[in-house]
């Protein structure tokens, strides 16, 4: 089975974020980048499927030169090949624009299965995988926890709200967006890194960007606020008020 894993490089989780002067994106100068977490789980799922069923895992990532480090890491963890779609203006493209870039390469590769994280840690739109499936004309399922290869295709477990799961059977080729935490991630090894050096990374140039249908207006840091409110009354009254606030205002119970 040939599996294509679409991954994205995002700022590290504990990076100190500053807003760029334009106000439309973060200041990238002092930020380290890493693999988008759900994509790491998509890669892990692909590697485990390959270990079980054989085949090939190809990783694909669009972005500037810096994303090659994330591709190398994926090769080190066990992917067989990497494709880098070189694009310095990926931030200017909307979901459709990014999915179009990926679709072009995916068409040529003609994989049996495409995996990607359910959403990105930076924008969190959760659309790229779905749009990509639509562009390729293949079925998709989102928020996948488990994948099993069957004679007729796939059996997958989707996560729904409120602790519910949905089991779906689908034919191949297909696209799945993977939820974090379904598997245990593996650690990178020295042997993996050394082997990665001998693996192929192909670079393709991204086509010109069409004018995006969606543009980002403004990003800003969440405002920190601290509010203290004293509840008064008998202990029973205070408790009742507190429960109400926790339920309907803070919504934690």
């Amino acid at each position: 089975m040939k599996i294509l894993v679409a991954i994205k490089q995002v700022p590290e989780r504990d990076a100190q974020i500053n807003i760029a002067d334009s106000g439309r994106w973060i200041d990238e100068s002092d930020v380290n980048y890493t693999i988008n977490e759900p994509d790491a789980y998509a890669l892990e799922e692909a590697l485990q499927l390959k270990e079980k069923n054989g085949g090939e895992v190809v990783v694909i990532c669009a972005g500037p030169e810096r994303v090659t480090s994330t591709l190398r890491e994926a090769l080190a963890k066990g992917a067989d090949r990497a494709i880098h779609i070189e694009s310095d203006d990926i931030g200017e493209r909307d979901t459709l624009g990014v999915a179009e870039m990926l679709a072009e390469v995916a068409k040529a590769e003609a994989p049996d299965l495409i995996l990607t994280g359910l959403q990105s840690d930076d924008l969190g739109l959760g659309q790229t995988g779905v749009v990509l499936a639509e562009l390729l004309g293949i079925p998709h399922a989102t928020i996948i926890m488990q994948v099993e290869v069957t004679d007729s295709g796939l059996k997958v477990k989707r996560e729904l709200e409120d602790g519910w799961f949905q089991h779906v059977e689908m034919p191949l080729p297909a696209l799945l967006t993977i939820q974090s935490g379904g598997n245990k991630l593996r650690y990178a090894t020295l042997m993996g890194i050394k082997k990665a050096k001998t693996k192929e990374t192909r670079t393709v140039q991204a086509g010109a960007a069409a004018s995006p249908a969606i543009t980002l207006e403004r990003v800003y840091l969440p405002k920190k606020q601290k509010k203290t409110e004293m509840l008064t009354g008998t202990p029973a009254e205070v408790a009742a008020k507190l429960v109400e606030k926790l339920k309907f205002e803070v919504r934690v119970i």
Partner: protein
Amino acid sequence: MVALVCAATVGARSMGAAFSSGLHLSATLAEPAHFSGFEAALLLVGVAISAGLFFWRFGPILGTIFRSKKDTNFSLHPIGRRVWDFFWEVLCQGKVIKQRPLPGLAHAFVFWGFLAFALVSLNHLANPLGLAFLTPTGGVGNFYFIFAAIWALLVAVSITGLFVRRFFARPIWLGTKVSNESGVIAFLIFLLMASYLGAFFVDDGGTAVKVLWWTHTLTLLIFLPLIPQTKHLHLVLSPLTVFLKRDGFSKIPPLSGDEDFGLIAGKDVTQLISLQVYSCVECGRCTEHCPASNTGKVLNPKEIILGVQSYLNQSGPASDAPLLTEALVESRDNPPAKYMSMEAAFECTTCGSCEYQCPVGIQHLPIIIGLRRGATNTGAWEDTHGTKLFLALEKQGNALGLSAMERDKFIQKQGFPIFDGTQEYCLWLGCMGGYDPKGREIVADFARVMQHLGTTFGVLKKEKCTGDPARRLGNDLVFQTMAESGLKAFEAAKVQKIVSICPHCVRTISNDWREYGIAPEIEHHSEFMARHKERLPKQASGESIVYHDPCYLGRYRDVYDEPREIVKMAGELVEAPRSHERSFCCGAGGGLAFLGEERGERVSHVRAAELVGTGAQIVGTACPFCNTMFRDALSSMSDAPPQLLDIAQLTARALPKMQDTGE
């Protein structure tokens, strides 16, 4: 061989005759007057057979050692240290005696006796060939024979003592099964001495002296081929092993080339490791002091050494068969297969007491960590906690897996200045100092001590783990990343001097990082404080404080006195039953603080109970890892456990409260 046995039978019969004619002690050694040509020929044949049998077994062992992989980065430098080790550990038997005084001394007498006896034996065999160079009639000869006789007496007594210890007292560390060969060897040594001493009781030229002479010779000829068959191979190899051992304690050699990932199979076993495993004398000192073996774990350092030895015997040094099994295999092989399992290898706390104790120069840590490297660098080792630790180091850059922002907040709250080149010291926080609540208290207190002394310091804006747990767990990729990033950070900040509260950080930065570059000079806060102790407050608290030697400060860095000086200024120093070089691990080292213990008792509980048992009011530590282990152990042991304080806290509590630190 047949001829020799005949000679022995004849000898035994005539000996009875000789003894019935009466014994007398003379101050000269009796010697056979005449050897026939037949006897000389018999001797030559006997020597040839004996030597042949010796090399029949010893040759293949030598071959295995030579065919093992070459050690890269091996250098005889510094030769002075090697000569000293040889003199002290081999010739003086310093380590043998120091670590087990009574049996050690007995062993030393046997060894020295052998040295004294070497000339006598040579002379003994040269005699029938007319080549004797010592004669009882010559002044020098007579003196030497008497000198050797005194040694022979000591050897005979000592070997009897050792025999009784091994077969009747039976210390458990010698193993559940004591090899019978050791008994045979002990008997042969005794016979060797008795047959020599006997010659002082009989007349020159008689049958008795001839019988004694042949008994002695025969014993010698049987003894020789037994050496390479048994652990007595250490007679031949261990002087060389001690001389050639890797320079430095727990020295992890760099991997050589793109195909080296650690000790995966026989092909990865180097000459030095081969030599070391064949030198094992099976005394069990390594296991006796091992925190894992003492708390019911699978790990048994002696059996790892013997496991590698038996692997080499069976599969050879070119084999691709894995050294470690992934699962615990129960078998009745000797040594049992379970000892060469991943579980065993990953139970090691790298406390180093095995390597420190070993009297024959075996360096256990490069072997155990080498086995771990082979498993981790290839991804063969799958462990939930281990993977979590490695991913935390990959992603967050600290072993606790917390966001780097947590460290920033701590620094801000404490008002620690960022190192900018104007301060004297860079204060290295480490993962514990930067993220762990108790570690932070220690760092904060040490910072107060530095402020009190007027020493300027700053902390790095960004700091990642030194890679210590990755290093000890055999993850060279993470370790290299951490070492390189740390070296770069120090260089960028132009750091000259570093001080740290963590012995693991100190060791890793000063020693292990050398593989990738030279770090600025670093010291442990105990060393810093001891140097400035004149200006630190003396407390008349009268409290008793038991000091626990951290492995990475004691055995790894040889720092024993400095922290004790600090403790003595804070109260009355109490020594634990096991202290200094023999200190018992807290259980945290080797990455085990992050793995957890699943089998047997907890190492930390065993040690904590020992410390509590001294009755001291305070447990004094000098390592944040020991501290965190004892914190858990003490609180679960007793409702009113002794106080647990780092030496920095012991000092800082007596400092006048400062206004400007915001405390």
